[in-house]
């Protein structure tokens, strides 16, 4: 099975050095792009491939790149930002790539920068990824020494400066416009869109923000072509995907598999199924801000379209499994407490609504809940819906809540009626 992104990563070992990466065929993509393609040809290629953003939103990457102005009077320089602020609870796929094969990302960023005309690029890295920070700095130094970064890359006349910036630690910095504010040294609150970052982004200049996994593809796509990429997927959406599984499974970890691999297959076969004595109750498919998928829905393909059809979202495709011995109220409370604490405090429904939800869930979990609380929770899933808040943080927090109220209502009622958590007797 082809695993272009993770094939050469040796889990638990040192990352590939530049020389090792080159031996695997690395940095051929950039040679092809710089010597044989124009920037707009690179964009067209990525568009054709159908690559969609791996950060969770699934926006077509080539299309996003095409919004960057190239003609006429526009503010310069253009920036490329890699969103490596992986803080979605349950997600650890980007870390795997950063610690395992940093040059794959760097090559992708050089190609992407060339495509959009960026002269400066930043990797905005999660504060906790100290190991990845050191690895990236080392890799970047290697790249400068080898002449693939800096001035006149490989004699092409293309210049690129690449920096690693470590975040100060807040989850909202993973939201692309809050990331830009944080990178500028401002308070990390999101920006209203429009204007979009491709018009007014970092320092007010045209900016593209892409996920680590997305950018890691670019070198491969340039080298192997759009059709190759499309054929890697099983059902229309191209490429492979890094799937993560965590929870009470025998083999939690990262599995690179074709896009549209069936969820049950990933969990039961690749991740080995549940540990003895545990049963699977539900899965949140793509990080904490996605809806529960129940055991009887596990036969769906893991891709953006299919999950949307069952009222969920693939998000980062890092699955967290809820087992039958874990209290769903506690599971949900834990998630909502995270979202409440990570609210940036800018808009009212999120700032006040999420802590209210947290307090209610805490009360229910402790056995002090009332049935009216469920109505309040239900209302909040509408009140904090998309468009009603300033960014997607609160709507994301509502996704697990809303599906939990649907699928685990009986468990909530038990807590309320029995005045204690049935899982904690």
């Amino acid at each position, binding site marked *: 099975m082809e695993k272009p992104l993770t094939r050469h990563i040796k889990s638990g070992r040192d990352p590939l050095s530049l020389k090792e990466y080159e031996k695997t065929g690395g940095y051929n993509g950039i040679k092809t792009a710089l010597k044989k393609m124009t920037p707009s040809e690179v964009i067209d290629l990525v568009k054709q491939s159908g690559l969609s953003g791996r950060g969770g939103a699934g926006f077509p990457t080539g299309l996003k790149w095409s919004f960057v102005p190239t003609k006429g009077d526009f503010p310069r320089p253009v920036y490329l930002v890699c969103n490596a602020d992986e803080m979605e609870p349950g997600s650890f796929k980007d870390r795997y790539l950063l610690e395992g094969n940093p040059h794959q990302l760097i090559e992708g960023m050089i190609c992407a920068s060339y495509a959009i005309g960026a002269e400066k690029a930043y990797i905005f890295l999660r504060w906790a990824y100290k190991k990845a920070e050191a690895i990236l700095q080392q890799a970047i130094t290697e790249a400068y020494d080898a002449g693939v970064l800096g001035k006149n890359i490989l004699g092409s006349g293309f210049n690129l400066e690449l920096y690693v910036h470590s975040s100060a630690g807040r989850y909202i910095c993973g939201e692309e416009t809050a990331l830009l504010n944080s990178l500028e040294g401002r308070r990390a609150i999101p920006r209203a869109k429009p204007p979009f970052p491709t018009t*007014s982004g970092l320092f007010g200049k045209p900016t593209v923000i892409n996920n680590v996994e997305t950018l890691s593809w670019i070198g491969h796509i340039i080298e192997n072509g759009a059709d190759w990429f499309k054929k890697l997927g099983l059902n229309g959406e191209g490429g492979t995907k890094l799937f993560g599984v965590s929870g009470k499974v025998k083999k939690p970890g990262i599995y690179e598999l074709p896009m549209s691999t069936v969820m049950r297959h990933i969990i039961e076969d690749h991740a080995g199924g549940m540990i003895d004595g545990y049963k699977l109750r539900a899965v949140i498919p793509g990080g904490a801000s996605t809806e529960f998928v129940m055991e009887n829905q596990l036969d769906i393909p893991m891709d953006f379209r299919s999950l949307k059809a069952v009222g969920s979202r693939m998000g980062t495709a890092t699955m967290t499994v809820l087992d039958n011995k874990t209290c769903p109220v506690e599971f949900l409370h834990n998630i909502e407490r995270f979202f409440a604490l990570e609210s940036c405090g800018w808009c009212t429904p999120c700032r006040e*609504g999420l802590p209210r939800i947290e307090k209610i869930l805490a009360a229910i979990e402790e056995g002090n809940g009332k049935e009216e609380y469920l109505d309040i929770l239900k209302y909040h899933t509408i009140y904090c819906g998309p468009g*009603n808040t300033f960014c997607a943080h609160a709507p994301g927090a509502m996704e697990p809540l809303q599906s939990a109220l649907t699928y685990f209502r009986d468990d909530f009622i038990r807590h309320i009626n029995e005045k204690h958590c049935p899982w904690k007797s």
Partner: protein
Amino acid sequence: MMFKIKINGKFYKVKQEKNLLEVCLSLGINIPHFCYHGALGSVGACRLCAVSSYRDENDKSGRLIMSCMEPVAEGMVITTDDPASEKFRASVLESLMLNHPHDCPVCDEGGECHLQDMTVMTGHAYRNHDFKKRTYTNQFLGPFIHHEMNRCIQCYRCVRFYKDYAGGEDLGVFSAHNHVYFGRSKEGVLESEFSGNLVEVCPTGVFTDKTLKRHFTRKWDLTNAPSVCVHCSVGCNTIAGERYGVLRRIMNRYNGSVNGYFICDRGRFGYEFVNHEKRLRQAMSRKSKNEKPVVTTDEDIENILINAFSPGKKIIGIGSPRASLESNYALMKLAGSENFYHGTPAKEFQLIRGALTILLNLPVRSPSLKDIEKSDMVLILGEDLTHTAPMIALAVRQAARNLPVGAGEKTGIPKWHDAAQRYRTRDMKSPVFIAHVHQTKLDELASQLFHSPIHDICRVAFAIASLVDDQAPAVEELNQDQKDFAIMVANVLKQAKNPVIITGTHCGSLDLLQAAANISIALAAFGTKSSLSFVMPECNSMGLAMLDGKSMEALINSNSDTSDTLIILENDLFRRAPGEAVKKLLNKFTCVLVLDHSENETTTKADVVVPVGTFAESTGTLINNEGRAQRHYRVFAEEKSLPDSWRILGRLSAKYRKIVPEPWETFDQIAESLEKEFPVVKGINKKINGNDFRALNDKIRRQSIRFSGRTAVDARLEVAESKIPVDRDSPLTFSMEGSDQKSPSSLVPFYWTPGWNSPQSVSFYLDEPNGSMKGGDPGLRLIEPQENARVNYFKPALTGESSKTGEYTIVPVYRIFGSEELSSKAEAITERIPKPFILMNEKQAGMLKAAENDFVIIEISQNIIEVQVRIDDKIADRIIGLTVNFPEMPFVDLPVSVRSSEIKLTEQNIKSRSK
């Protein structure tokens, strides 16, 4: 271009490039909102302004949009009164009420609270939350602002105003989620000169007026009047409110051409001189020149006056730049024009007349504050605006944003999209050039600075004119820095479409005013219309200059040994001329009659003192530095306070001299007289309605309909309900009964619209947010550019001497708190007045063996003053700045030369250093 949109079933034509909320507010449609503000634009934080938008005819449910962030579009269909948006808005209030303390009964904001209004308007009523509220600790923020963070609804207006609009740095937002906190990183006095506006900008009681707290009154219990600030020449419009004979507070009165939504701290908190114990309340007289005047009988005073005004006695009148136009006029009529003098320092008289002459004769516009805000380039010459005309400094800050906002608009970001504008253009600024003797707070805005003695600033200014038009007189021997600055400024001036040049009288140079005029003349010749703003010292400097009269200097220097009667109107002459000269002058007169409202050095040397009303107890016209005539009205009724100066002078005229057939018993009478005699104020009485105004046959009420205690207020004196005092001077009435129509813009005593009790109700008085008052902004502009005037260039006089070796030139330094007479008496302001100081560069300090913060004794013109040393490294060698006009400081005519031997360290300091 106009768009047609449908709101709640009706069609409206609206301006394009606006957002939906501002359009609805312009139309008088109630959309609840918090974070939007006319001057601050939209950010979309609070989510309260939600309305429903419909795709087309078939869309029955619509979707919620935030109206403040939604650009209007042709064919837009929205509803504000549908169940979905109403429920959503109520939910937003519910969210805010989760943590809001149940403070209304003890909160100063109650009754004037935007949060209360929005809670009622959205219909949220019941608490359905079983959990505790989050609380904060408060901070000490200085004598002006009280901090109560529990009440915060996190609308972010405070920091947006304080930092983004007013350029302040020490108020910020901290923490995240529902712990967001607004305050300073460390407790302490808020540094911005505009901090007082937080009181009105904050929709709840987080930031409240600390001076009001000392004598707190609910908004609905106040008797209000439209007024004008008397603490500088900008003439911001204010609202004054009183209860039980005590002036309680000053707040902003919107004037779209002048101050807009904001006033400075000096204007807001300087009013306590009206309530001061040093107010003169009773007439006084003295028996001999060696005594101080004391309270005596009316008979005693009558006898003195009969003598003083007897036929044949010559009456000399000294008017005042802080008294109203009508009061000065009345004195001028009583004494006679040839005997009327302006009570200002000699140089100041020359400068203000010079400025007025320039404005009356040149093809240049005297700009309003709004004009300055709209200019595309600012040149400031020799004025520290932050301290001499703070609101002009604030206007310059807004002008600096015109270039970036325009650039943002070109990329499709609307003007009102505040955050996106700032992200896009960041530190970009319109060109601002500042030339001054020392560093100023506005320096951070400047594209280029020029710190230099005034003499050289004049030379460079003349040079700029000659570079714009080579017909203007050139200047020789400029050094490289001077050349560079002149060339840069001239080039930018030539590219600007509406530049403004701001200078003023505070540095004491007529040359500078004329150099600025030359620049304007040159620009006119070049084909550019420019504006020229002259900052003046006092609230009616311009008004006094428009009347007849000579400089007081002539009086001081006259050779006559004795004179008869001197009448001094609202003026402490010891602030206008050297002490010895004033004493000599006063001794010349047999009878010195002083009319004033507060005790000062002059009143202690008067033969008769007649107490008069302050601006709060008087109706009068003041003319600001723009040349705009504006009127202030009585807050206190005549029978409960003191008469206006013009009324007293009118009575004196009628009783003793019969200058006018009838005493001016009503304001209309004197105002009409004045208009007839001085064509420069033509049109004033029509524009600013007089007593003939009637709206539905009713007068305009000064009190809200909720005014309480009407019958109890005086019950301790008389149980029977007293008659409502009559206001003979205006259409305003001292009662709660009056017209329900909105009053004309010059006569608004308080803002109220059904459902809007807070200052936000001002939106319904405006043609659009941040626009003009409906029916026109208050006041009448008296001076317009002489478009086709043929003018000659002024020749550089350049009489400023450069200092000789071993000598220093002392130049004036002004402070917003301290340099103005009346506000300095207010306790909260007094706390903020720094110790008098001298300002010099490090090298000079070293040569004088003084270090920063040392106290030194300095002798200037025979005055011994103790001052603190402060360092400013941009001040030229041999130039020393000295704070002027501080309370207890003697009058010094600056600039003046001083030998280094006359600057000594105090003994205290010398001792402490040797330790």
